[in-house]
Structure formats: structure tokens, C-alpha cells
């Protein structure tokens, strides 16, 4: 009988994890692999957008319709949601429940605000005559930012589920990995937006 406790695992969240050949938590490692695949997914969408950039033969064109001040505010909102996310994780890891709940609620509200900005932008574009089938800009823009928005929506729903868990007292420090994984996903949608904001909105 062998005891495979690996208390010295380097990324084991300060407590022992079951034995693995890498010494790492397989859930976390698998999630990083998933995020790597997401890089390729968004990479292909960004590559398509860049390929067809300024190739539309009918308007509205990107230079006519993109609202930089509005998108700058929504970018700030998403960045602040990432800050709130790490503060929520910090709260759970240190056993500060109220602080963690308030921070996670902040992430959800900021994420919902970002989605509100995106809904407003899409509606505005639609009324300005830009639809998915209008031109190359419309097709590539809506597909790329739409998929990003879908990821944010999934993230908000995920975090709402975790908030309920937290409110029920089911998120002790020993379970902080659950929130850390959700946090990795949330930060990933943030870094994708960092790229989108620069390539689509600022470099026209």
C-alpha cells in the first residue's frame, strides 16, 4: 500500500493534491490546454478579420461607424472586472468571505455592463445599416466580437453559479481552485478583448 500524497507539488494551491505524473493539478493543467485551444480559435477569427480589413466595397465602413470613446469605456469596465476577479480569488484563498462575495458580485455586474455596451453597439450598428450580411466588415466584425460576447456571457453565468455557491458557504479556501479556474477563463476573455480593441478599434 502506497500513499501518494504529493504535499510538495509546486502549483498545488498550498495543500496536497492527488498524485499525478506531472505533479500538477490535472484540472488546472487541462484548463490551460483548453485556453491554448481558445487562442487558436480566436486567432483564426482575428486572422479572417485582418485579411478582409478595409476590403468592403459598400458601406458602412469601420471608420464611419466605430465609436472609440464608448468602446474605451467598455474596455475599462472589462479591465476593472479582471481586477475584481483576482480580488475575489484573493478573498476566498484568505478566507475573507464578505470581501470575496462583494468582489465576485462586482465582476458579475461589470461583466453584465460590458455586455450592455456590446448590445447597445450592435443595435446602433444595425440601425445604421450594418448587418452580418451587409459587407465584409459586418461579417467579420459581428462574428469576432459576437463570439467574444458569447464567451463573456458564459463567464457571467458561470460566475453567478459560483456566487450562489459562495453565498451558501460552499466555497472554503480549500475549494479556491474552483474559483481560480473560472478566473482564468474570465482573464482570458479580457486578454482577447485587449487584442480586439487594438486591432479593430484603434488601428483602422
Amino acid at each position, binding site marked *: *500500500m*502506497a*500513499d*501518494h500524497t504529493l504535499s510538495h507539488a*509546486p*502549483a*498545488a*494551491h*498550498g*495543500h*496536497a493534491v*492527488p*498524485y499525478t505524473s*506531472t505533479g*500538477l493539478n490535472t484540472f*488546472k*493543467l487541462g484548463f*490551460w*490546454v483548453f*485556453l*491554448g485551444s481558445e*487562442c*487558436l480559435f480566436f*486567432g483564426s477569427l*482575428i*486572422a*479572417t478579420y*485582418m*485579411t478582409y*480589413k478595409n476590403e468592403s466595397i459598400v458601406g458602412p465602413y469601420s471608420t464611419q461607424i466605430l465609436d*472609440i470613446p464608448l468602446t*474605451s469605456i467598455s*474596455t*475599462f469596465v472589462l*479591465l*476593472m472586472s*479582471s*481586477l475584481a476577479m*483576482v*480580488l475575489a*480569488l*484573493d478573498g*476566498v*484563498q*484568505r*478566507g475573507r468571505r464578505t470581501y470575496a462575495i462583494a468582489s465576485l458580485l462586482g465582476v458579475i455586474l461589470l461583466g453584465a455592463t460590458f455586455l450592455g455596451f456590446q448590445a447597445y453597439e450592435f443595435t446602433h450598428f444595425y440601425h445604421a445599416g450594418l448587418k452580418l450580411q451587409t459587407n465584409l466588415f459586418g461579417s467579420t466584425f459581428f462574428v469576432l466580437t459576437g463570439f467574444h460576447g458569447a464567451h463573456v456571457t458564459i463567464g457571467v453565468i458561470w460566475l453567478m453559479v459560483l456566487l450562489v455557491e459562495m453565498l451558501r458557504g460552499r466555497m472554503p*479556501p*480549500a475549494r479556491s481552485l474552483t474559483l*481560480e479556474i473560472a*478566473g*482564468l477563463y474570465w*482573464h*482570458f476573455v*479580457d*486578454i482577447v478583448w485587449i*487584442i480586439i480593441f*487594438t*486591432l479593430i478599434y*484603434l*488601428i483602422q
Partner: protein
Amino acid sequence: MADTHTHAHAPAHEDHTSGHPTWRTYVVVGFILTAITGIEVALFYIPSLANILVPSLLILSALKFAIVVLFYMHLKFDDRMFSRVFFAPLFLAALVVIGMILLFKVLPGLEIS
């Protein structure tokens, strides 16, 4: 008899942060990210900087990306294996984007003498 795969549940007072930064560091990083975003938007509105706009924005964007990944996603503090499985496909994705731009935007515009 089967091997015992112990999962030691730590007591509540144990540190679960694995060397992660404190909230102060996170807030400072948040301020830095906000400042960089402000600089990006300011650069966009300054006509005299049009010549250096694209490289400046790309550098600042890469800087923000790196800061979030290193500090908020903890790659600076976690095992290197996590970095490898993330940065390898990221590098491949970047190659795809650069390759597509070269093929469809740059090379067709070049005159072959």
C-alpha cells in the same frame, strides 16, 4: 489493496495563495492597465503621432496582455508547464495571423522586379 490517493484537506487557517501577490499588487496592476489603456486612446487622437501609431499600439497592447497573463492569471508565479501549454498555441495563432496578413495584404502589394 488499492493505493491510497490522499487528498489532504487543509484547515481553514492554512495559506492557499501559493505565493500569489497581495491585493495591493493587484490594485497597482489595475492602475497600470488603466493608464496604458488611457495612453492607447490618447495616441489614437493625436494626429502628429500617426506615423508611430501602429507600432506603439501593438507594443502597448502586448504589454497589457503580458501583464494580465503574468499577474492576474498567475503565470509568473505558477509552474512553467502552464506557460508552455498556453504560449505554444498562442505563438501558433500569432503565426497564423501574421501569415494571413503577409499573404493577403503585404505580398500582393509588392512589385516583383
